[in-house]
């Protein structure tokens, strides 16, 4: 498939006539707007895009996108999207899912999607809670969390979604926070351009059942100190005054103050999103506060052939050299005549 030339589009072109039915104040609104802006910027019209989702608040996404849309069943969006993408490599496919949808019931399809590298952009709305079913803990909820289903605190150790993804052979891993439109735009643009499974973890606030889950990273006052925006080829610096860096000592990251202990920009870890070896991406996927700033942006972007391309190329290759003679197929090798 050669990509069609981009056309001029507005975010509004991606809006539908459906009432948006998220709770007022939900982080999902900002994400929807970010995606609509990113698609407009990309310039691929809605009829060449399909949006697929499972079940959950986040999975309502397709109804609000003026593309082809499939709001399916809980956890199964990766499988449906895989079939769709194989059938229609001409469509760009975005998948919307929640931490429950993709990491609880849909965990298996999720890791197989990444392994196969089907060309699908995955938006995982991680609010660390089950929103739609009204507030049970999810596989990303903190240990000890009190929820409707864990009145005495959860005893489940959580997944780190990006680490699960890298363990499952992810080629592209991105991350942003719902309230951070700027980073969101960058990550979404990178994912749109990536050919293969582009996994994007979005820290999303569920203001009804898990309000403030990401405040320690999201609120303006701390964001610069508690997160680090990764940029390919750039040294890892952060802080409101960009006066802190992350360096690698062997396999361990270390935070340092620029200009202290004789350390400067030159000592900072230079982010290589295209590093074929996933070890550093794995490290970044797990890096988090309070010791470390949590990485945002594109953690990894390494190309390998997309599954849908491979499967269709194989069909094309065989078809090119073998005639498709239906009668011959029906006849088989040893037909005989009666009468």
């Amino acid at each position, binding site marked *: 498939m050669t990509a069609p030339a981009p056309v001029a589009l507005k975010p509004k072109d991606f809006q*539908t006539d*459906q009432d948006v039915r998220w709770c007022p104040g939900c982080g999902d609104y900002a994400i929807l707007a970010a995606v609509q802006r990113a698609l407009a910027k990309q310039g691929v*019209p*809605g*009829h*060449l895009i*399909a*949006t*697929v989702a499972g*079940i959950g608040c986040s999975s309502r996404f*397709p*109804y609000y*996108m*003026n*593309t*082809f*849309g*499939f*709001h*399916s*069943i809980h956890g*199964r969006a*990766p*499988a*449906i*999207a*895989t*079939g*769709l*993408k*194989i*059938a*229609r490599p*001409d*469509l760009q496919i975005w998948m919307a899912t929640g931490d429950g949808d993709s990491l609880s019931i849909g965990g*298996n*399809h999720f890791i*197989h999607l990444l392994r196969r590298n089907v060309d699908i952009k995955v938006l995982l709305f991680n609010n660390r809670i089950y929103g739609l079913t009204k507030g049970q803990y999810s596989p990303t909820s903190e240990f000890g969390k009190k929820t409707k289903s864990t009145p005495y605190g959860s005893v489940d150790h959580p997944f780190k979604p990006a680490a699960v993804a890298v363990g499952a052979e992810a080629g592209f891993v991105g991350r942003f926070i719902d309230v951070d439109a700027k980073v969101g735009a960058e990550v979404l643009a990178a994912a749109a351009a990536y050919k293969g499974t582009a996994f994007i973890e979005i820290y999303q606030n569920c203001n009804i059942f898990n309000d403030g889950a990401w405040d320690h990273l999201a609120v303006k006052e701390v964001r610069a100190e508690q997160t680090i925006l990764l940029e390919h080829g750039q040294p890892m610096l952060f802080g409101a005054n960009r006066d802190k860096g992350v360096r690698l000592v062997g396999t361990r990251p270390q935070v340092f103050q620029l200009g202290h202990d004789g350390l400067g920009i030159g000592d900072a870890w230079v982010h290589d999103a295209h590093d074929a070896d996933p070890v550093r991406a794995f490290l970044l996927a797990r890096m988090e506060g309070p010791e470390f700033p949590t990485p945002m942006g594109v953690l990894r972007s390494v190309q390998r052939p997309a599954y849908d391309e491979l*499967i*269709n190329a*194989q*069909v094309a290759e*065989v*078809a090119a050299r*073998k*005639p*498709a003679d*239906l*009668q011959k*197929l*029906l*006849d*088989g090798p*040893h*037909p*005989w*005549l*009666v*009468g």
Partner: protein
Amino acid sequence: MDGQGLAAAASHKPTETREAVVIRFAGDSGDGIQLTGAQFTAASAAVGNDTATFPDFPAEIRAPAGTLAGVSGYQLHFSSRDILTPGDRADVLVVMNPAALAAHRRWLQRNGVLIANRDAFTSKNLAMAGYAADPLSDGTLDEYQLFCVDLSRLTGDALQDLGLSSKEVERCKNYFALGLVFWLFERKPDLVLREIDQKFASKPILREANLRVFRAGWDYGENTELFRIRYRVPAASDIAPGRYRSISGNEATALGLVAASQKAGLALFYGSYPITPASDILHYLAGYKEFGVRTFQAEDEIAAVCAAIGASFGNQLGVTATSGPGIALKSEAIGLAVMTELPLVIVDVQRGGPSTGLPTKTEQADLLQALYGRNGECPVAVLAIQSPADAFACAYEACRIAVQYRVPVLLLSDGSIANGAEPWRIPDAAALPAIDPALLDSAEALNGEPLQPYARDPETLARPWIKLGVAGLEHRIGGIEKWDKTGHISYDAANHHAMVKLRQAKVDAIAKTLPPSAVTGPDSGDLLVVTWGSPWGSALTAVLELQAEGKSVAHLQLRWLSPLPADVGDILGRYKRVLVPEINNGQLVKVLRAAYAMDCQGYQRIAGQPLTVGELKAAIVEHLPA
């Protein structure tokens, strides 16, 4: 070696003509029993016999040699008349070791021919098969015509100078048996010889070895005193003229799917997860890439059906196949296809249940699961294959209905159909009925009206199948209840009621297109036998034989289970009794009783085996009104 030479060599032994013969091969999984059986079948079909087969697999891959668990069987019925079943009992049983004798002896007719590989009746093998004494010599087999052949030794003798390992020699011995039975039944060896040629093209020593051993078997029959007569089963004369081939149910299913996709102009998308006895459909389809077939071996059955649904949304022909446990897993997703009203074909190759059950045995206990095994009111179309060759037409029909009604169609096969083989009259590809997917593929067709993804075709009640990628046709579907026409989410009470009724009506509408049901036998009378699926052959044979004996019995085969054809109630009402034989605990009989409030009776033997003509005749006679 010259096969023609063999065939031409006139035998000096007398020949007896038989109308039909049932032969069963049994041996260790490693003994090549299935191959031997298939080659004998091909040769029988090639001389114009009608044939029907029943492979009887062990559940183990390759249980330790000589154990009961490892015995593999293959039964072939070949005949000079049109036959419908692989036969109740064998006229000839070939056993490669004591375990095979122990496990399969009960299938041999009294006074039947029993050919045993004497070399395998060692004390170790006898013990493993549970024999305290050697049955070949202790008189326990007196009720049969016993032929003891030193098969292993004779094979070894024939290969003495080739320098093969003893393992390699052992592997050739099935060709000795094959040569012997080819001689015994006057089969033409050319097909076998050609296959050996091809299979061992790159291994000339093995090619030579197998050819030699085959000839040794043939010569053994001709030259030793052991066998005094040969048998001849003439070509069948009551078979409709045409081009034929031998085909298994799984292969015919695969071909039906490919043919339908070609005729519909849709690429076939086949999502599947391996499971016995459905896996071969995947194996066949994976080889048909030149027809545009996409096979997707999914991570599980749920992903397999979901991918097929996704492909169907993307305007390919989405198909998935599995066996009973897989259907259980797919049931939630099938509901999604019902709600989204997308074409989808689901094949269930039934096996013994419940749970893992008897994976390599046949059963038809998934009918109620097919009809009702989903949450909510979730009607799908259901049809069932009656025999291996019938699978082609059924698969084709399933695709046609799915595409034209935008409805999931569940196609029921079973283990005996899947692995059984019979001659199939090859259809003319060009003459296959057209399938028009009638995609809604341009916004112009809307005439400026808003797109209504759930608008209805007045005839089929089908909604439009909308082409993706076309500007102006953007729309969204999903598993929440839909407003009719607009397809938007709806929690409206009256709309839900109407949609539940509509989804059922859509399936029911298929009945309008079905031909009148054809009863074999009198239009009314004492008893009607109703079957679905694989008992067809045994039931029809039993009914025909009883008719010949003057009984007032008839037979009706139901291909469609959902919807039931419109005339079935009337037909049932014209007989004093209705008997429904099934390889389950009484499922169609429940459906018919519920549908017609009639006191239909069931007959069941749930033993992982096809129903036999004999037992069905007895059951029918028992149910005849006094």
